[in-house]
């Protein structure tokens, strides 16, 4: 942590014990910290001295005005040894830009339905932000976290401004790729600042569906020209399987003229929901499937027998390694995943976090089967939506009850 503003073990304002540096940027740093008073993990954001005074206070106040599962929760703001800090909910998961990159690397694309679901969640959170009289101004995949339980969380309100702050909106801010062209020229019509976020949803939607950003340009001027060019890039050029209505919506969202865009995030939510209903979501009929992850061959064998006892005809796959499990789930999401916590490569909790964070595991029930899970392990697993079972004589009965409950038609 050399060069960072705080060190591991530092206690901020007598309450927040620094555990690790999570990230650093031009404006400041974000730390993983333990709230000693309330015994919970938090994210502690600190302002680099000399940059944009009070931006953390502004961010904190903006967040305090909003209560929505899609918006990161603020706990408090303060100052420690002259350094401003903001304490936020610690959101575990994977950022959307990493997920997009991950899929691009693997040559995979977001299924249309999944992409729409993500966009609905982002637009819904933004509609609440706008409803509070605020504009986020930095909507981009890197500021969207995919948290356990399918929760999509809008992060980093460092550039937030009140809707009515016309002078503030004339100052270009945000990430060039996602900024509306009017932001690049400072030409923002009164009452239209929220349409900057609407534009950003369009760019994000394009990237989500196509795996690449829609505009090329080495600098702000080149990007501005690309953004003003008509027609705007069509999703259908790269995603022939996208419904034409979705392509039309993304095109509208990225319209160079703000007045041609949907006139608010709420309107975007409704259009996306209507589209989602039309995208076929009929699940393919397939046998009940189970993935067993345990490095002990004896355990794999007995767990497989327990599953067969509870669900004749189940498709059972077994592996002794966490990384193999991740790959297996990527290939095909099982209905039930049984995972040992003590694995040789990555431990079972990390497997669960990766699966939940990547939303690969949302469609399946994850159950940890462990010989010695600690209370802290069980609590963390609960937060991830993972049930915990003990390796012991009751395991067969407990497993049978779980399988009985989740098996289709039972």
């Amino acid at each position, binding site marked *: 942590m050399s060069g960072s503003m705080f060190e591991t073990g530092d206690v901020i304002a007598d309450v927040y014990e620094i555990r690790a540096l999570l990230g650093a940027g031009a404006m400041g740093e974000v730390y993983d910290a333990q709230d000693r008073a309330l015994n919970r993990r938090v994210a502690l954001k600190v302002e680099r001295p000399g940059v944009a005074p009070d931006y953390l206070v502004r961010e904190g106040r903006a967040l305090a005005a909003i209560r929505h599962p899609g918006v990161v929760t603020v706990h408090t703001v303060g100052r420690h040894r002259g350094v401003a800090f903001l304490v936020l909910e610690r959101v575990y998961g994977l950022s959307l830009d990493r997920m997009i990159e991950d899929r691009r690397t693997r040559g995979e694309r977001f299924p249309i339905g999944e992409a729409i679901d993500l966009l609905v969640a982002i637009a819904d959170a933004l509609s609440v932000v706008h409803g509070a009289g605020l504009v986020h101004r930095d909507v981009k995949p890197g500021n969207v976290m995919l948290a356990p339980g399918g929760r999509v969380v809008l992060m980093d309100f460092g550039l937030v401004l009140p809707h009515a702050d016309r002078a503030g909106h004339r100052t270009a801010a945000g990430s060039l790729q996602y900024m509306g062209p009017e932001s690049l020229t400072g030409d923002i019509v009164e009452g239209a600042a929220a349409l900057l976020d609407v534009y950003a949803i369009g760019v994000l939607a394009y990237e989500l569906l196509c795996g690449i950003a829609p505009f090329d340009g080495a600098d702000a001027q080149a990007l501005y020209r690309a953004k003003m060019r008509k027609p705007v890039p069509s999703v259908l050029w790269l995603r022939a399987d996208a419904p034409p209505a979705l392509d039309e919506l993304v095109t509208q969202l990225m319209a160079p003229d703000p007045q041609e865009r949907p006139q608010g995030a709420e309107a975007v939510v409704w259009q996306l929901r209507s589209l989602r209903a039309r995208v076929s979501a009929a699940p393919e009929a397939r046998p009940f499937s189970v993935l067993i992850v345990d*490095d*002990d061959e*004896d*355990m794999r*064998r*007995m*767990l497989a*027998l327990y599953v*067969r*006892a*509870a*669900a*004749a005809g189940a498709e059972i796959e077994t592996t002794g390694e966490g990384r193999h499990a991740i790959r297996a789930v990527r290939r095909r999401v099982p209905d039930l995943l049984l995972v*040992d916590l*003590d694995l*040789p490569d990555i431990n079972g909790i990390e497997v669960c976090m990766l699966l939940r964070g990547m939303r690969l595991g949302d469609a399946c029930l994850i159950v940890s089967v*462990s*010989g*010695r899970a600690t209370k802290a392990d069980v609590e963390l697993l609960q937060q991830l939506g993972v049930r915990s079972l*003990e*390796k*012991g*004589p009751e*395991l*067969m009965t407990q497993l*049978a009850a779980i*399988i*009985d409950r989740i098996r289709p038609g*039972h």
Partner: protein
Amino acid sequence: MTEAGDPAIEALVASARADFSRGLVAKASAIEAMVCRAAWDDARRAAHKLRGSAGVYGFAALGTYAAALEEILSNGGRPPNEQTQASVRAKLAELRAEAERASQEGP
């Protein structure tokens, strides 16, 4: 509804238990070998595995001995000192005796 009472599955479970039982002495020997070459973490992991599988296969006493051995081998993540090593050997002897007994008489 489950097929927990399916005779075919019960036979497979019984067969798995018999195989497990036959392998118990070898498992205890493997842990002894790890301890002999001071592979403490390998030994701890092996004891941990045996603890879990013994519980599931119905060998509760063996699971208790394995748990006791795992506990000593954990030793706060540090290599065991001489005194702890003596405790490890004592627990290992108990584990082996129980493994030999269980492999003959069952759980």
